[in-house]
């Protein structure tokens, strides 16, 4: 177990969980502010992945924000790139870049584009936005880690709608074939995509059974419960000769009552009044 994990494992008590919850609250508020200011973006899928990303970056990832290219770092790929605001808020909070960049989200020429651009943003491992590609990149990174005899882990966050992409399953097959047990896929299972519920669009269920059939170790959790998220990440880290999939039940738009489980909040920015109400609910004014 690495240093960060030892420390975190020791601290997986009530006060540490409260600390993470407080961080996630602040991240959610930043997501709302950023998207409202930009006037466009994807609040639903950003808010559903916040707790998972918070647990990764503040409790489990072995990373050095001041040295983003450090060869031994764990990699996190946001394959569902439209949730970029959540990732940006967290990377900024970690100190990868000045938070003043938040003000320029989605502006022409800015560091923080609508979808993550690895050539611009320190801490972004690969450019995403076109769904279905991130897991394949993760497979390549995990293979490289093995070739270089490094023990870094690779995490890939996918949407549940994204699982409809064929390339995801090509990558799933490859990861199992090459027994990449340092690779972990995390599915943000919020049940919604753009055109509606996943089961009404192109049903990817049963999701855990599919990963299992492709040769992965699978666990199902509540993606908003920090204890469950961290236990699942630790479970995934064990050497088992196969990759791990964490299927995390989440609520799209989590944390803002009028956005929760609403398909129409996938890709629209809140107006000024909506943003005010959202921030008030998140305990900010």
């Amino acid at each position, binding site marked *: 177990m690495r240093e960060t994990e030892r420390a975190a494992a020791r601290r997986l008590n009530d006060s540490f969980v409260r600390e993470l919850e407080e961080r996630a609250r602040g991240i959610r508020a930043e997501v709302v502010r950023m998207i409202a200011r930009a006037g466009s973006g994807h609040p639903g899928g950003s808010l559903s992945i916040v707790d998972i990303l918070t647990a990764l970056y503040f409790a489990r990832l072995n990373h050095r924000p001041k040295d983003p290219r450090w*060869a031994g770092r764990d990699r996190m790929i946001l394959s569902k790139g439209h949730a970029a605001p959540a990732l940006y808020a967290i990377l900024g909070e970690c100190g990868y870049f000045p938070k003043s960049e938040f003000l320029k989200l989605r502006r022409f020429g800015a560091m923080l584009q609508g979808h993550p*651009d*690895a*050539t611009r943003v320190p801490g972004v*491992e*690969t*450019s995403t*936005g*076109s769904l279905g*590609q991130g897991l*394949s*990149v*993760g*497979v*390549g*990174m*995990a*293979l*490289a*880690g093995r*070739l*270089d005899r490094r023990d870094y882990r690779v995490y890939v966050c996918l949407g549940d709608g994204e699982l409809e992409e*064929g*390339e995801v399953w*090509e*990558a799933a*097959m*490859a990861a199992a*074939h*090459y027994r990449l047990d340092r690779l972990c896929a995390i599915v943000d299972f919020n049940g919604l995509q753009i055109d509606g519920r996943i089961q009404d669009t192109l049903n990817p269920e049963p999701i855990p059974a599919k990963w299992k059939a492709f040769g992965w170790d699978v666990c199902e959790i509540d993606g908003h419960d920090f204890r469950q998220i961290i236990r699942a990440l630790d479970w995934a880290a064990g050497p088992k000769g196969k990759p791990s999939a964490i299927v995390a039940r989440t609520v799209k738009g989590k944390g803002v009552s009028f956005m929760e489980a609403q398909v129409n909040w996938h890709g629209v920015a809140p107006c000024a009044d909506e943003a005010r109400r959202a921030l008030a609910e998140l305990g900010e004014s």
Partner: protein
Amino acid sequence: MGTAKAIRDGYGEALLELGRDDRNVVVLDADLAESTRSSVFRDAYPDRFFNAGIAEQNMINMAVGLALSGKTVFASSFAIFATGRCWEQLRNSVAATRANVKVVASHGGLTVGPDGLSHQCVEDISLMRTIPHFAVIVPCDWLEAKKAVLAAARMKGPVYIRTARPKTAQVTAEETPFAIGKSVRLRPGDDVTIIACGVMVEAALEAAGDLASGGIAAGVIDMHTIKPLDAQAVMAAAIVSRSRSSPMAWALVDLTVSATTARPPVDSARPTMTRHENRSGDSKCWPMPMVAPMNQKTSASSISSLHVVRL
């Protein structure tokens, strides 16, 4: 020159050298290792070869992950699958991250005739040219292919190389220089210049031979790099041939040159080529824009097919 050999064989030979000299070189294929010749690397360095199976899109993005972790990655399939099926992966993941991925695709063009429509690929060069940050190379024989692969490995960033399956003549020599973006003049001749790439270079040399017996001195340029295009060589050839031609031919040359220079064929990440300046003081056809003088000349000349042929 040397014996006939398939262009793809140059890929296998280069990979063998690269594997020996550089532990960082990794090779992927999609169940076509024998056909593309990546099998040569697989057999010599099995620990650094990964078969992605018949899953090309995943292969390209595996290459991205490996490259972003410091590897020099070669990924191979047939041209139609590597570029056609994976164009968006090549654009949104390889080019978008400037990943050090070299896509080497065999069976380009119509040279796989017997396999039919599904395996022929005349579109790969156009498809790859449209993607920023990609260099596009079409070697003309196995030896040039070998040099191209070695040069691609030395260069950081995305490269596409098209190879071919049939045995074709060796038209370059061991000492023929190779640099990405710098064409090779394989035959002198100023009446007309034939610019070709890939297997068509051999055909161009044959045609030049035929023309010579008709009293026409045809030069042949091996334009192995399609992007960044060696615009200077094109313009130099155009200027030389223009001086020997009719006004109508001049007009066509000017048109070619203006099309070449209107939009620099090089993207900003690469060393830019110097734009051709007005050196000769020939203000009638230089510099751009060309529209007015070109029209004048067109109307001033009597158009006949002879002029076009003589160009």
